[in-house]
């Protein structure tokens, strides 16, 4: 049967993402140190820790407002480029989902599509430029396909994780065209993009929250 993402699960997702970011702070920073400015792990930890502090206060809000407030929190606490970018992702997603109490596949697709659109406009990055877009774009496409064939959330989410993982891994062989890594040119080849990695964590965590075995 078709299981929706409840408001409680959204809150749980955000909480778990925060835990993942804290755990992977050093890993993300290490990735970023190779070709960027070695602050991605620190920034993501700082941002999501702030979200963690506030998430209890979000419990009376609808899903859209929760996501929007998460975005705002990220923007005002991260500091690096991931602040405006992830901030925009969650804010736009939230704005598309205002007054929703639960999300079905179509809702999730529409929210994420809107969020990704916002990120693309903000950072003007395209797929293939070694950025989080290399994860976000395939994720959007997979969800779109699931909506079209009428798959359930539980069918769609594992595919989302796989697409996100593939997208993340594909960044290793790319030349960075955006952000500070782009100053390295071809020397950026051979390193996985930190932003794509944190994006992967976000979707993987969503699947984990929704998968009963992980409860």
């Amino acid at each position, binding site marked *: 049967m078709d299981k929706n993402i409840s408001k409680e699960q959204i809150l749980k997702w955000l909480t778990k993402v925060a835990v993942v970011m804290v755990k992977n702070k050093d890993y993300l920073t290490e990735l970023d140190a190779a070709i960027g400015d070695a*602050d991605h792990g620190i920034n993501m930890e700082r941002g999501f820790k702030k979200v963690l502090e506030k998430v209890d206060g979000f419990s009376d809000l609808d899903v859209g407002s929760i996501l929007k407030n998460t975005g705002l929190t990220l*923007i*005002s*606490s991260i*500091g690096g*480029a991931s*602040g405006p970018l992830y901030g*925009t992702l969650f804010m736009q997603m939230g704005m598309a989902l205002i007054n929703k109490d639960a999300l079905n596949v179509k809702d999730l697709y529409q929210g994420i599509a809107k969020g990704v659109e916002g990120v693309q406009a903000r950072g003007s990055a395209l797929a293939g430029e070694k950025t989080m877009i290399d994860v976000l774009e395939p994720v959007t496409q997979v969800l779109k396909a699931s909506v079209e064939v009428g798959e359930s959330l539980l069918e769609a989410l594992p595919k989302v994780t796989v697409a996100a993982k593939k997208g993340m891994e594909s960044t290793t062989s790319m030349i960075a065209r955006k952000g500070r890594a782009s100053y390295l040119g071809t020397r950026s080849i051979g390193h996985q993009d930190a932003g794509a990695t944190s994006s992967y964590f976000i979707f993987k965590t969503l699947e984990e929250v929704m998968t009963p075995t992980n409860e």
Partner: protein
Amino acid sequence: MVNIVLVSHSRKLAEGVKDLALQMCQNKVKIEAIGGIEEAGEISIGTDAQAIFEAMEALVDQGDVLVLMDIGSAVMSAEIALEMLPSGLQQNVCLCAAPLVEGAIVAAAQAMTGAHLDIVMGEATNALAGKISLLNPAKQAMQADEVEMDNYQLFDLLVPNPLGLHARPAVRLVEIVNRFEVNAMVGITANHFVSAKSITQIGTLGAKQGDILYFKISGREIEEFTATLEKFQKDNFGDVIAEKPLNSPSSLGVVKEDTRLNKGMIQGIAASNGLAVGKVKLVKRNLPAVVKTTVSDIEAEVEQLKLAVQQVIHRLKLTQRSLTADNSEEAQILDFHLLFLEDEHLIQKVINTVRKEKINVSYVWSENIAYIKKQYLQMDAPHLQERAGDITEIGDTVLAELVGEGTEPIRMDEPGVLVIKELGPAETINLDKSKVLGIVTAGGGDTSHSAILSRSLGIPAIAGIGNAFDSLVNGELVAIDGTKGEIWIGSENPEMLQSIRAQKLLDTQRKEKLLLKAQQPAITKNYRQISVLANVSSPEEAWQAYQSGAEGIGLYRTEFLYMNRDTPPDEEEQFEVYRAAAANMQGYPVTIRTLDVGGDKPIPYLNIKEEKNPFLGLRGTRYCLQDIDLFKTQLRAICRVSAEFPVRLMFPMISVPEEIMAVKEILQEVQIELTKAKIPHNEQIPVGVMVEVPSIIFLLPVLSQELDFLSIGTNDLTQYLLAADRENETVAKYRSAQHPGVLNALQYIIQNVDIEVGMCGELAGDPLMTNLLLAFGLKELSMNNSVIPRIKETIRNSDDEHQKSLLAKFRKLTLLTEVKTLLEENQPSLG
């Protein structure tokens, strides 16, 4: 007015750029610097959209806002901040793609001229143009856009100042253009013009001293505009003259980060002119390290602080006492140090913290000093920010006292070039001037106190050599050129060393000779001494006059003080200006002419009605007698200066004796008021009038008994005598002060009055005329600074016999051409 938000990942960078930009716009533009991200009081690298939003919100109420950012998240955070603004306000904020540092400086400069947001944004975006054309002229990326202009007028202006059209004058120039209803293009060649409203484009002209700026001007207010330009030029393009020109390679006087050692030459910032050759005396100081510790004997700590502060105050007072009256600037700087240390509030705050938290006093002291320093650095006014250097010096001196390592005074055992990281003002004053041949500092710039002091002490100095400091070795021979900011290492450049040494010798000899000659009196071959005085309009020009050998000011024009502003100067301002001018003349007499408004010098706020024939209208004293309050304010200011300096009062445009009676009555009222208020002034202040209006000439033999002196203004006298308007070119051929019709009148005046008669018109500064004027019996000539040495020399070569024969020939002449021929035939030769 456009205000500016600066966004950087680094708070230090944002604030540093803000300092630079504020210096550029003299604090006329509001600038918010947003940098770093703050969490639990700690600031790390990053950008905060919320903070940017708050800055935009604060400024957008006061006008348009231009936002400049560094890279990456700064851009995105600024975009988000903009989206957070109410949509109605978003159009008033522009995010600008300009490079942060260059963009901020250009934007600030353009904004202070009152330009529109689009213009400021365009200029800032183009901010790299100057640097590109400087470093890579062949590949100049940006072309100045030439605007086609029809029906324009041409106007030329000579660049007067040694630094040329650098950033500050460029800003002033754009400001002037914006003030008038004109469209103007400017160039230094006749075939390449740029918009005179564009700071970046003007910057690319690279106009140097002696270049001619060609203007194409159209619009309604061409005359007002060109008059202001002329004034601007007379003002030396706003560059100070008395203080030696700052020949810094970076006109902003910023510490250059990149001072590479290039073929044994180090480039620093020129801080004080002059040459020196000598051994490096390297002074390295280790500041006492301060560690936070808890203490048990709190009162001992408190006592220690009080003692340390007292010691330092005592030493400062000793230094101050050793200063003479000539060092007023130095004394003022020390005053600031004293004031700071005598501030009970600060001392008490430190003591309270020590008592409360039981930690060592040296730690608390350093923390407080660091905090105060930060406060100064955050202030808007650059001159206050520069005080941060003083705070460091005071803080370190007390700290050294506290930790028992009294700062060693800088001791030079033999003459040499002092090389030191930082030099405080008090230390600069205490230097042994006989030993310090030159000063080189790693930090500082051309406006820091120690640079100013070096200039006033006449010690060549170079600041801001940065890391190159480490490449200088104690004892090695160097040559420094304080004018260019260059340090030459002797071992690598022996020929440069020789050349600078020779140049220095030559310089010293030439300067002494020139000054000696200029300062010598002008005495004819028959031992008649003639007073050679100057016509000036500002204290700076007075100082130049003194340097050029003027023996006084024969005409101090006060109108310029009233021009180009919206309200008249008040008594205090006038007092300060006249006093400064008199002080610069070092005791020589100064004749101050009261406001000569009207005619060719309109002042809008005085609301003088437009006249068909202003030269025959309400001008000079005629106007002042209608505006008694304005007149009295000026008289009070002049009278107050007369208490201290030999000042004389002169009234312009006197046409009838009734006017002399009227002004004397008002002067008497002013004097009585001053006496009643116990304000010192010279009750016997000499009073004279300008002889410009023919009607007065024939009354002078009698009238002069009421006066102390006369000064003949040949320019106006000529136009009135010959009935030829100064501004009407069609009658120009009738108008020459050399016409026998005028010259005979001059002779009549000089020979028919018993009081002192001088001449302050252009004729006085014409060397062709000198012999004839002396033959008429004139004993006092007042002229522009530049011709003083020449006229003095002409007088020295003059003799009675030649004058007599010249006068005899002149008496028979009635035509202008005859006079001209006579003068040219008798052109004085210069020895």
